């Protein structure tokens, strides 16, 4: 571990007298321990052993324990298919998507400290973030671009899973969880779009939620909606916006969906998604190719 530290050159003798009263410094020096000794003793302390449960020297056992005994790493198996680490198989897309989700949670939490989800204040808070808050503009930009990037990486992750046939048995259910996560990723981005309360967000959300008017049976402009008594004041769009137009209630609802409700739903689905990867036999490949002539059914 500590190559190069064991044999420190001997310290020059310090004469007793000024700076070394009664040879105290010499005595202390004689008692001093080398960094390697200190390190070895530190690892014997109760504090150290309570935190790190296994040794760190490079052995197959410790390599496995490094993954298995860490709460952050234990979603991984200890060993994986040697070809599965190839970039050309997974493209790293699922992992990158999750990492962007983490970045978005961090930047989003910081943004929440500066944001009031109410008309008038919301827009001013964004201006405040852009012009006054230290690194506020960088924070907002990061959140925006990570969100867009996450939509793209989610699509590409779906494409990779399809192209490698990874949704096939036994992973059918996890593909379905993934489809739901795809939907919630876009809904997360969509609900965030309104929050700056500017023209861009307002009209994008107006266009988007106007679709809900036309919901069959449940929208006041959809097929059979009016016949069932739905108006602009009680249909599904009203429920989404908390009103008949995009206004203060819509801003508050978008905020709560965006910051609390959908992240919780998405987090639960993520837990299931990751859990199922392991339970369905870890990552799907690169699996040995099969031949049509070998299939009997």
């Amino acid at each position, binding site marked *: 571990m500590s190559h190069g530290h064991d044999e420190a050159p001997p310290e020059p003798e310090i004469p007793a007298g000024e700076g070394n009263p009664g040879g105290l410094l010499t005595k202390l020096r004689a008692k001093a321990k080398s960094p390697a000794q200190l390190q070895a003793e530190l690892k014997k302390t109760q504090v150290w052993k309570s935190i790190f449960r296994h040794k760190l020297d490079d052995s197959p056992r410790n390599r496995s324990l490094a993954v298995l005994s860490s709460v952050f790493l234990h979603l991984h198996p200890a060993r994986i298919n040697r070809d599965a680490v190839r970039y050309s198989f997974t493209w790293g897309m699922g992992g990158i998507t999750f990492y962007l989700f983490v970045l978005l949670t961090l930047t989003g939490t910081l943004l929440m400290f500066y944001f009031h989800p109410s008309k008038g204040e919301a827009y001013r808070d964004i201006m405040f973030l852009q012009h006054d808050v230290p690194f506020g503009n960088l924070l907002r930009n990061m959140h925006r671009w990570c969100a867009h990037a996450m939509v793209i990486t989610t699509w590409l992750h779906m494409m990779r899973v399809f192209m*490698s046939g990874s949704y096939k048995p036994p992973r059918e259910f996890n593909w379905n969880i993934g489809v739901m996560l795809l939907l919630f990723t876009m809904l997360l981005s969509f609900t965030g779009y309104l929050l700056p309360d500017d023209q861009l967000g307002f009209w994008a959300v107006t266009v988007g939620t106007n679709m*809900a008017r036309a919901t069959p049976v449940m929208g006041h402009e959809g097929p059979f909606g009016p016949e069932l008594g739905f108006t602009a004041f009680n249909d599904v769009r009203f429920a989404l916006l908390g009103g008949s137009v995009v206004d203060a209630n819509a801003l508050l609802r978008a905020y709560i969906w965006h910051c609390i409700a959908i992240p919780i739903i998405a987090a639960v689905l993520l837990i299931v998604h990751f859990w199922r990867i392991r339970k369905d036999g870890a990552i799907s490949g690169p*699996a040995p190719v099969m031949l049509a002539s070998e299939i009997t059914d």
Partner: protein
Amino acid sequence: MDWHQVWELVSLPDNVPIVLLLLMVPFYTWLAFREAGRNDRLIAALELDPDMRKTHHRVPYPWKPGWPKTVHVWPHLLKREFLAAIIVTTVMIVWSIVLDAPLEEPANPSLTMNPSKAPWYFLGLQELLVYFDPWIAGVVLPSIILMGLMAIPYIDVNPLGNGYYTWKQRKFAIATFLFGFLVLWVLLVIIGTFIRGPGWLWFNLGDTWDHHRVDHQVNYDLHDFFGVTGVWQVFFFGLAFVGGFCAIVGGITHLWVVKCMPLMRKRMSLVQYATMLQLWVLMIFVVAKIIARLAFTVKNFWVTPWFNV
């Protein structure tokens, strides 16, 4: 050619992701097919050589007897994950320093933005609004897309290609998926972003976005071409056309499957097969409606007092 207009569109901060999409989607499509090609060549070699089947490890990557089939996650996977995290962080920080997130004027319900666009990832659906009533484009089709995606693992009965890239073993599945994803989703997003200008009119890339442009195109419902009048006559004409269209497309697809993919049909239950056929016919129907509108100025196939299709 109005290069200024092109630059304005491409450099709009919120459009940068679509530029990114334009580069990344073709790259990853190519990457998937490169991997598929490697596997397909290996499969062809194995089919020809029974001895090789028994000895080969069946992955087109180098491997020697005695090499372990698995590696430790620490460090072989974790170092890659760490590297990916560093690269993504760097890219996101640089992107965030170079480009500011857009902020328009404060929301003003009395001043409509023109064009008024949904967020870019929903522009494919907004583009579908040109061709379908809002209840279809905005509610029914997205629901069917989601349900169709969820149905995929249960209607794809092909046991081959599980966990490796291949084209030759899964031609039908891959062609259908890529058509849906690349053409009906990504291409429509790109059209909605770069081609649709003020009034949601079609502006070729490089045309100046003229806010005063008036489109004189007149669209007809299909029954107008045949001189059908009267509410019920129109209703039954449309019903017959849509029903006939689906029956013919479904029938042709069925014949094609039976003739060219008999094994697929044999492996499927009736429910699986019917679901697959319905989704397939629906996809063709969406394409037919887009072509009918763009090429033949047809607005609706089926007009009823309650809804139009």
